[in-house]
């Protein structure tokens, strides 16, 4: 990718509650709000931070599988329901499995760079509690190569894929320490979520999270190497943020304290049909992260806060290696030593991440951008990190390391 032809900024981020098991207000049998509610909630929370919705030029909506979870297509058109002034403006829907949100941000950036827009509203949404997890597993399996993999695949298709990765990692780098680190990942995610009132695990009251995270996996009912605490949640939620040019955010009545600049972007697609060369590595993630860092011209040491795609605790560990925070096989030690906590050297997933906040799949990449923006602008409230470095970084992943977007922001 070439360098940006002008500065691009993030502004006015917001997200909804991540609704699902764990939240006190969640009752599996009671009626719940649908897609339009979440899109509007997140969208309106953005609008409330700017002078006038008239100043929004375009919209991008990120979503993975509304066509199956909610039997709804044509989502870009649904986006206009956020505000009447959006009607008749250009909108587009993007999809890249669980990296849909990341692609939403990337698309927003490109729209700004094209010069056709100054302010782009990016919304990510997914409403998944419409089906039980056992049926949701079939839908989410669409992030893999469905025709070639689903039939042979496990009941819980993706958990099993990452269980295999965990198994390979155990073998290569030691089971005990890795298993411990996965439990610590879970504990840290929930501790951060307890500081974030919108997180799905906000109401979690478990006293000994590490022991809970160490629960013995049961291959008979779930997977060989992952227990349910190793998994992100089944969630309903949406996130929204504005991608702007300098002229754009000024037009919105915002000053430079309220925005952060996007200085690096990596966008990578790997071959959906081929199997991973090495189960203990996320090589496409590594490529995307390298691209973003090259463009931004920063090193890991310049980055003070990270958002990684921990769809499973093991993916969290693999991601921080792919980002280059530590070398291969070293993530477990880093996590066990507390270096990824809010007070650690490399704070990761400060608002809870996918395990703690929740994983409304198509929204997650946008939610990551919002959490980075919050950290950069000092709006993260209880989970605000005392930033030692002026950069933040995210990696949004779709499928089994297939669709990747990495973004680097600067205060």
């Amino acid at each position, binding site marked *: 990718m070439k360098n940006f032809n002008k500065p691009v900024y993030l502004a006015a981020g917001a997200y909804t509650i991540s609704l699902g098991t764990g939240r006190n207000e969640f009752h599996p049998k009671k009626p719940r709000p649908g897609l339009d509610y979440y899109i509007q909630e997140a969208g309106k929370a953005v609008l409330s931070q700017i002078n006038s919705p008239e100043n929004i030029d375009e919209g991008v909506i990120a979503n993975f599988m509304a066509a199956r979870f909610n039997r709804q297509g044509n989502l870009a058109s649904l986006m206009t329901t956020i505000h009447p002034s959006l009607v008749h403006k250009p909108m587009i829907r993007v999809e890249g499995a669980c990296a849909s949100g990341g692609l939403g941000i990337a698309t927003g950036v490109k729209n700004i760079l094209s010069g056709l827009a100054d302010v782009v509203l990016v919304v990510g949404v997914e409403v998944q509690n419409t089906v039980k997890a*056992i049926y949701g597993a079939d839908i989410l399996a669409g992030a893999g190569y469905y025709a070639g993999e689903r039939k042979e695949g496990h009941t819980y298709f993706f958990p099993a894929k990452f269980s295999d990765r965990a198994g390979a990692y155990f073998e290569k780098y030691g089971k005990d320490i890795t298993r411990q680190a996965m439990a610590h990942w879970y504990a840290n995610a929930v501790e951060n979520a307890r500081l974030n009132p919108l997180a799905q695990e906000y109401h979690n009251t478990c006293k000994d999270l590490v022991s809970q995270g160490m629960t013995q996996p049961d291959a008979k009912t779930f997977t060989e190497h992952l227990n349910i605490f190793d998994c992100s949640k089944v969630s309903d939620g949406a996130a929204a943020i504005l991608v702007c040019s300098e002229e754009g955010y000024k037009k919105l009545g915002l000053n430079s304290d309220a925005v952060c600049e996007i200085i690096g972007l990596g966008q990578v697609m790997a071959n959906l049909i081929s199997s991973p060369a090495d189960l203990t590595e996320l090589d496409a993630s590594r490529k995307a992260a390298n691209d973003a860092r090259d463009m931004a011209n920063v090193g890991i040491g310049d980055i003070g806060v990270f958002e990684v795609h921990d769809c499973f605790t093991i993916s969290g560990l693999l991601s921080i290696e792919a980002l280059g925070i530590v070398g291969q096989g070293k993530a477990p030690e880093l996590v066990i030593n507390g270096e990824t906590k809010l007070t650690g050297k490399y704070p990761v997933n400060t608002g809870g991440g996918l395990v703690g906040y929740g994983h409304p799949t198509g929204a997650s990449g946008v939610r990551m951008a919002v959490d980075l923006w919050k950290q950069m602008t000092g709006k993260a409230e209880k989970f605000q990190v005392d930033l030692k470095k002026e950069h933040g970084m995210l990696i949004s992943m779709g499928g089994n390391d297939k669709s990747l977007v990495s973004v680097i922001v600067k205060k």
Partner: protein
Amino acid sequence: MDLNTRLQNVAVIGAAGKMGSGISLLLAQELGFASLENRSRTFILNLVDISDLALQGLIRYIKEQSVKTAEKQINRLRELYKDRVDLVENGEIINEFVHEVLVHIRTGKTLDLAKDSLLVFEAVFEKEELKFEVYNKLASLCPKETYFLTNTSSIPIKVITDACGIDGRVIGYHFYNPPAVQKLVELITPDTCDEELKVLSLEIAKKLGKKIVPANDIAGFIGNGHFMRDGLHAISEVKRLSKEHGYPQAIYMVDKVSRDYLLRPMGIFQLIDYVGIDVFQLILKVMNKYLTKQGLHSDLIDKYMEQGVKGGQTSSGAQKDGFLKYEKGKPVGVYNPETKEYVPVDDIFIKAVDEKLGLHPNPSLSWKNLLKDPEKDSKTQNYFTSLKEMDTLGAELARRYYNASKETSEKLVKSGVANKPEDVNSVLTLGFFHLYGPINDYLK
């Protein structure tokens, strides 16, 4: 003939009843799996009951429950369907299995439907004449090799076989309610039972995931042998306590003591209501007929039945009023046969009874919170040790109740109903969900 051959044609008689529907569900699912595992055979499940509406309700019930089973057994099902390229998703596989379960079922309103069945489960009303009628008919319709598994709660198996000329071919297969959930089957083997049937019964239990406790062929067997006498003890206590405290308070007291002081899941009168006062009377009558001079009779129960107060459940499973009146499953009144009205159980009523009973030995202990406690046994022992010492009315009633239950249980062993104390204890813990078996040394 092996079990798999017999499973190719099975019948349930009284299939739409409380017990019959659960047994039908278990068998339908078992045949569903069996047909996937032995594709060269055909399996048939004949479900017989007397009402079309009830049979249709039964199919709906089996369908709903089979979805749940398939969801739980999805890993096994994905494996069983691995050759079916058209079935890819969990949802598709679950639907296919439910279909497989239903495809083997034939329903009907007459016993003719069972004429080719090699294995018959019977769960019609607990009435001797009805059971005789059913077995006489089946004896003439079915092949000579057919075996019968009766769910009778009280009628001696020998009485049935003698009356219907099918000696050796009937065994008591006493499921507990609800059969799809409860793990216990009390197996009543009459002296003349065929060896093959005995072996088969154990194989079936294994297939259905049930735990067998053997009992001997004496009316009421172990479960009702204990339950009926437990109920009669409660009623005699009520009579005794009524003089001082009045009837409604006495009922409430004994119910409370049997639940909270004995750490049982339900009070005795709530349990009788749950089973149904009519059923209680029916079983008592049968037992009294075969076990004479044991006082297995209650005027009070007859009085309730005369007044039309029967307990039991509505078709949707809600508790009907009986000894107690229920709101949202909780007792809120006590029936008084003198006035034919329910006396409300309000705060004043409860306080009055509680003051008379005195302090509970350990209010933090209950059946519910001990159930999953790993230290349940030692905590229960300690609890009874403190109960032994206490000088309150509640503690005294609890000791009397405990002793009566223990004595009944020991008599079941002594009179040959149960082979050993452990069997009585197993029936009470597995079938009645008690925390402990009645034959123990807690109060020694």
